[in-house]
């Protein structure tokens, strides 16, 4: 059980603010860069999951190939109790998605960073889902 909680705030259906909060009573070392990527990609600390709210099926996909240096020791953060760090990414910049209603979750996954820096708490944290609605195109 981890004391870390991941919170989302989405503005204009695109700008996703991700906040990692230490809700516990003791400090936690985290992968503080919180760089966005994809579940199967490297050099990322968070990734998004888009699902159809009715079926639960994963929808959308990867919009970018990116090139990023590995998480460095300089980016490690010690979160004191009650403290938080945040990161922002643009959903449309990073993910393709269909029109209609979607559920967005973000996953904080420090496994690769923890493998290099054992002081990092190696536990994945999933945000609560946020329901988003994207208008369908016109009649063409």
């Amino acid at each position, binding site marked *: 059980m981890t004391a870390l909680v991941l919170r989302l705030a989405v503005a204009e259906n695109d700008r996703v603010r991700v906040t990692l909060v230490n809700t516990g009573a003791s400090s936690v070392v985290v992968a503080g860069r919180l*760089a*966005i990527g*994809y579940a*199967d*990609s*490297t*050099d990322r600390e968070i990734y998004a999951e888009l699902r159809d709210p009715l079926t639960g099926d994963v929808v959308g996909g*990867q*919009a*970018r*190939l*990116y*090139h*990023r*240096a*590995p998480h*460095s*020791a*300089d*980016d490690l953060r010690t979160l004191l109790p009650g403290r938080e760090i945040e990161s922002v990414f643009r959903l*449309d910049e990073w993910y393709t998605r269909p029109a209609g209603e979607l559920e967005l979750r973000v996953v904080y996954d420090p496994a690769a960073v923890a493998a290099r820096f054992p002081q990092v708490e190696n536990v994945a944290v999933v945000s609560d889902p946020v329901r988003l609605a994207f208008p*369908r*195109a*016109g*009649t*063409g």
Partner: protein
Amino acid sequence: MALRDVESSRTPHRTRPPLAGSARVTGLAALQRSAGNQAVARALTVQRRALTPPETTAAIAADRGLFDSLTVRVLQTITGVPTAGHDGVIGPVTVRAISDRQTARGLGDNGIVDLATMDRLVPETLANGRPEHGIQLVLDFFNLATRADVLTVRHSAGASTFDGLRMVGPIPVPVFTPGATAFESGGLRVVTVGDAAFTSATTLRDAIQRELARPAPAAGPAAATPTRLTAAQATTGLAFTRARYADERSVRAIQGLVGAPVTGAWDVATIQFVAEAQNTAGLAVDGKIGPITTENFYTRLIAAGSPNAALRLLVDFFDLTDDGNLLTVFFDPTVTALASTDFRPSEPVRVRIGPNALTLPFSGAVHNIAHELEHVRRLREGITTAATHEFLGEALEVLSIGLPEEPLDPVNPTHDAFIDDATRCLDNFLLMPVADRRRFRARFIAVRRKVFQRIDAGTAAQRVAHAGLRARYAAVVLP
């Protein structure tokens, strides 16, 4: 909404076969209920007539005269030609797709891309999140001159320029135009066009032309041509440099940097200015712009606020090719990664370089662009697996053929050193589908050999530090 509302937005064609009976109408109504009007429109579009052979021939001839191969691939993408047909050549399938698109938009359906068709296609590129496609179409369709002094023409949603005041009655009203131009070394332009320019092809053309017409900042007073080199040395330096830099924009960037008159053409006077710059920088003074002088000029261009010109130098000097699949490569301060390429298999794409890339050592900067352009080439091949793309990009870096070698370990926190490339290369190889691992088996073997060589040639401490990675490579069982 009634079915006729869908039909009324389309131009009936006199030879279009009638919808076949009540069963078909009932089917369409069911489709409309289940999937919406757009699906109905698509279904109806399929029913349009085929172009006659003479019409097809005429459309092919007309469209081939309008667009180059890159733009044809854009056109094939946005008109829905199946990806296997994205070959950059206008043929029957492409003109049929254009004709279908024209019909669906209530235009004439002759398959020829005319101004009316362009005016419909361009706003759709923005609506579909592909404004760079609209830009490419317009640059080519209107034959806008962007080769000599334009580093990039790109979209930026809010781009605008205050262009004076207009009197509305007695009231002065500010005029903003939907574009902006920044100038880099040698008066090279970085043009951005905003959302408001995408109302039609014509408005986008006008916005771009307006930016192309903005006068570049006046050059300072011309300095006397230095005489560091003898005439024979200058001639030798000229031949050497001309053979390595073919892009006029590179010439302009360097001329601007070294204080030579900006002509866009290599000449002995420019080489004398280059030699003077070499002397000032403590380099060998020979007027030859080889890798060491290129590194010096690259670094100085970055420092002088000319990142796009600096990137152009790298692409040109190292002859980094894109197989005709690159729309544009540019510096984008919003990119948080080192670089980012549109992940759109079988489509022309953009490469964006982020600010962190400008802090890389020279070899890293070269590798960064080379890695992305490998993506561009492989996207043209239609590879759809991200891990395969990343393996190939990292493999190119590890092998460093024709590229400067990177240090084994990082020199700063954002540096992607050899060992990082090698790690990522292996991670992605293991994520690749078996078929791709088989296809690129020889590439992996070459990478593994190089990784062993580099680690084994490291210091004792490096060999210890990277023994784990070496062992992981050794443990790979090839398919």
